[in-house]
């Protein structure tokens, strides 16, 4: 009977090896996926039990965890209320986490790979692990100016330092107070979430990075850049500028704002941009061609699903399949072209930086609890969007827009501002979106900004980009230049 006994003993051994393998599978290979499962409240409990690192703006902690006497151990609070909600998002017992609280979670909890050695030290010294501080690139004055400018209107503002890609302001309205969601009172936090989730304008969603709008005339910057880059156009090149541009193969037409002409026909490229002549740009788009437009748009960052700042930025779209009429409509930022506010700020930032587009980012430094610098973001070239010569030419054309064109509301005494207005038609019967994107000072840019006010904001059907959005951009630029 010993032979079967030995075989049975081998079977028993195999059973235990299988158990060990499955335990290893669960606790090692699958551990990360299981820990990140949204149904896993344990991860949240454990995070709440540790001191989560603060989010810092200009030396002040604007999101921080303080010890409290309840089952979670630490309460997350947001000192500036609504001001930074677009950047920080929220960190909630019941509702999870969003935006930077989510994107920088590994650093904030101290669980990231970069903090490996800190963790080992905590393990050896027996001290409670603490999260790292995340220091942002935000400029409080610019952030405040943007929020004040949007006051009560739905929209977004993004300001970027062109030479580095640092995000100086990132605001989306309506915003929300993250403190209400971070409450440990489960019922209250849940109710606050329900109320915000169903509120008009979806406050929990960041329009600046998550919402795609038709860019309207601000997209003419891309069309103009494609024309200049083609080598066949200069700012002085003349374009036909009829009152109505009949599109080939259809009976559809493109008209100008207000239904009139563009002052002269033909018109120079510089003047067409200055007064935002739709018919001239529609024709220019068809002449340059869909392929060149798409290539130019993609150099500015369109059609890139992978951009993170480190929050994920939704992809701006320049469509694939196009015929001539669609190309003409796309060239003036209508039809299927869609852009996020941060995308339009990147367009301005690239032009401002001599054609070099820097990758935008919001996290400057990650510092461990003992103030040791764990990582520092280095400016990184995203793409070369234009040649320096074309960029300079386009900059001068944009200066014309603010000096004597559709964007005069953004004029700042003593500072040369380069900008472009946009008034994007949306669904029938709705007021248009008001856009403005600009940078300043034109000769040595310190800030590039994009503003959108949805459906004309307080001005409704009377709204234009120049009237509604440009003053907000002006205020943000002034705030940056004053600092």
């Amino acid at each position, binding site marked *: *009977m*010993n*032979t*079967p*006994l*030995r075989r*049975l*003993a081998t079977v*028993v*051994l195999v*059973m*235990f090896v*299988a*158990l*060990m393998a*499955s*335990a*290893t*599978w*669960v*606790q*090692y290979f*699958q*551990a*990360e*996926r*299981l*820990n990140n*499962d949204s*149904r*896993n*409240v*344990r*991860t949240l*409990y*454990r995070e709440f039990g540790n001191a989560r690192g603060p989010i810092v703006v200009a030396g002040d902690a604007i999101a921080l965890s303080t010890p409290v006497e309840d*089952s979670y151990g630490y309460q997350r609070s947001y000192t500036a209320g609504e001001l930074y909600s677009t950047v920080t998002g929220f960190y909630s017992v019941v509702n999870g986490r969003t935006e930077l609280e989510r994107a920088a979670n590994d650093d904030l909890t101290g669980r990231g790979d970069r903090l490996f050695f800190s963790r080992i030290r905590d393990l050896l010294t027996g001290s409670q692990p603490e999260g790292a501080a995340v220091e942002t690139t935000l400029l409080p004055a610019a952030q405040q100016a943007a929020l004040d400018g949007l006051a009560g209107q739905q929209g977004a503002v993004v300001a970027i330092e062109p030479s580095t890609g640092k995000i100086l302001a990132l605001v989306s309205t309506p915003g929300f107070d993250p403190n209400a969601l971070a409450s440990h009172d489960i019922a209250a936090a849940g109710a606050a979430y329900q109320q915000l989730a169903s509120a008009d304008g979806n406050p929990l969603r960041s329009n600046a990075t998550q919402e795609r709008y038709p860019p309207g005339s601000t997209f003419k910057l891309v069309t103009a850049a494609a024309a200049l880059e083609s080598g066949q156009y200069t700012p002085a090149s003349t374009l036909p500028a009829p009152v109505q541009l009949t599109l080939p193969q259809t009976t559809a037409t493109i008209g100008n704002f207000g239904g009139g002409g563009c002052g002269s026909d033909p018109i120079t490229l510089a003047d067409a941009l200055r007064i935002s002549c739709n018919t001239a740009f529609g024709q220019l788009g068809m002449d340059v061609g869909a392929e060149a437009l798409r290539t130019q748009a993609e150099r500015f960052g369109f059609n890139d699903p992978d951009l993170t700042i480190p929050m994920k930025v939704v992809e701006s779209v320049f469509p694939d399949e196009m015929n001539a009429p669609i190309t003409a409509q796309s060239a003036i930022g209508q039809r299927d072209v869609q852009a996020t506010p941060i995308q339009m700020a990147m367009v301005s930032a690239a032009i401002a930086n001599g054609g070099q587009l820097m990758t935008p980012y919001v996290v400057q430094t990650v510092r461990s609890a003992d103030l040791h610098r764990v990582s520092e973001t280095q400016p990184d070239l995203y793409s070369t969007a234009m040649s320096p010569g074309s960029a300079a030419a386009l900059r001068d054309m944009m200066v014309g827009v603010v000096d004597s064109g559709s964007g005069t509301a953004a004029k700042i005494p003593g500072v040369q501002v380069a900008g472009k207005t946009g008034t994007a038609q949306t669904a029938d019967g709705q007021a248009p979106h008001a856009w403005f994107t600009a940078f300043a000072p034109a000769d040595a840019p310190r800030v590039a900004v994009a503003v959108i006010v949805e459906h004309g904001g307080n001005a409704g059907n009377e709204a234009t980009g120049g009237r509604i959005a440009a003053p907000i951009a002006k205020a943000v630029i002034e705030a940056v230049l004053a600092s």
Partner: protein
Amino acid sequence: MATVQPHRVRAGRGVELGLLLLALVIGVAAYALVGIGTTDKVPPDVIGYGVGMAALAIGIHLVLRWRAPFADPVILPITVALNGIGLAMIYRIDFAYTARGREDTFAQRQLVWTAISVVLAAAVIVLLRDHRTLRRYTYTAMLAGLVLVMLPLVPGLGVLINGARIWVRVGGVGFQPAEFAKIAFAIFFAGYLVTHRDTLALAGPKVLGLQLPRPRDLGPILIVWGASVAVLVLERDLGTSLLFFGLFVAMLYLATERLSWVVIGLLLFIVGAGVAASAFSHVGARFDAWLHAFDPAVFDQSPGGSGQLVRGLFGMASGGLFGTGWGQGRPDLVPFAESDFIVASLGEELGLTGLLAILLCYAILAERGMRTAIGVRDGFGKLLAGGLAFIVALQTFVVVGGVTRIIPLTGLTTPFIAYGGSSLVANWVIVALLLRISDEARRPAPSMKPSLTPIVGTPVVGGSNEDDQPTEIMRGVR
């Protein structure tokens, strides 16, 4: 049996004492660490706890010196270590439940059960002088096993808990008779098979190269097989049914050396499981929860969903390689963290490292049991030891495999570790029987004179000279 050769072994009581001290240190240190981890101070009663545990362990160690001096020296220390780890974890989970406002004293009750178990195990060793005595009770054991299995179905006695009718409640004390039935069945199989092994193996038609048994030899076996199916159908206890069935097939194979039994057994089981999965919603739900554990619909389904299973996996995953440490995790987030899912609790707080160490302990325990079976000379003892060792291994496999998703989750308790008096007592009795048989297996053959020449220069850990006199033993080898 093959050739026989003399082989020197040590009685091993000294080794056992050394290992016992190690096991006690593990158990008591775990208890102290739970206190430090949950309340930041060593539990005030840690000395009393340590003395009590030591008294039990040393007590049964002395009983072995007295009545079974040649018993396997590893089995007892491993059992004490597992029991100690289990007690510490149950104590720790009490803290977690108390923190959530649910007053529980699982640990105190388990401590009482531990004392009862150890005393009973000692009693078995003292009273059962020779395991062959049990062979006389072959059919009594069968009857006892059947009665025990059917007991929960008796109106007024059986209680339905969490959808399974496996509990009996008498005068306020509940117990799971199936835990004891498995010992009864092991004795019955061993006694019956050792008598009928030749007719079972050789007489019968041959079909497709498989030697089939004669129908009349199958009678008692079919009765027991029927009982295990009844357990599945009437008591809704997938785990126990699987345990009986596995024991049954393994012991048939041991007795007859016929692979045909394994094939027939597996086929019967697969057919049975398939029919059960499609016919009974609760069995089908178990399969669903196993195969589609992460499916949101299955996860949220209650009862019968995979919520408990997946929460257990979450717990284990959060433990990672090294665990959170005693008292630092949140094992209470998994339902039944103190009993069915204590493995997940251990995985969370002791990490993969700790869990592998515990699994290794079980593996060594089972293999020492197998070793005993190989060493013992009589066929009944071989079958009984092999069967009992296999029960421990299979029960561990079914529980841990269920929690880690190798097989569908069934309701069985982890031997020695999980909360539950019946399981603890029954498994300690199994250990006592294995110790008794191993004493026989390792005892020098009476026909041969013991050699009194010590082996020079062989150090023995924790042993004294008197304990470790080399002796000769007959050992069957391949």
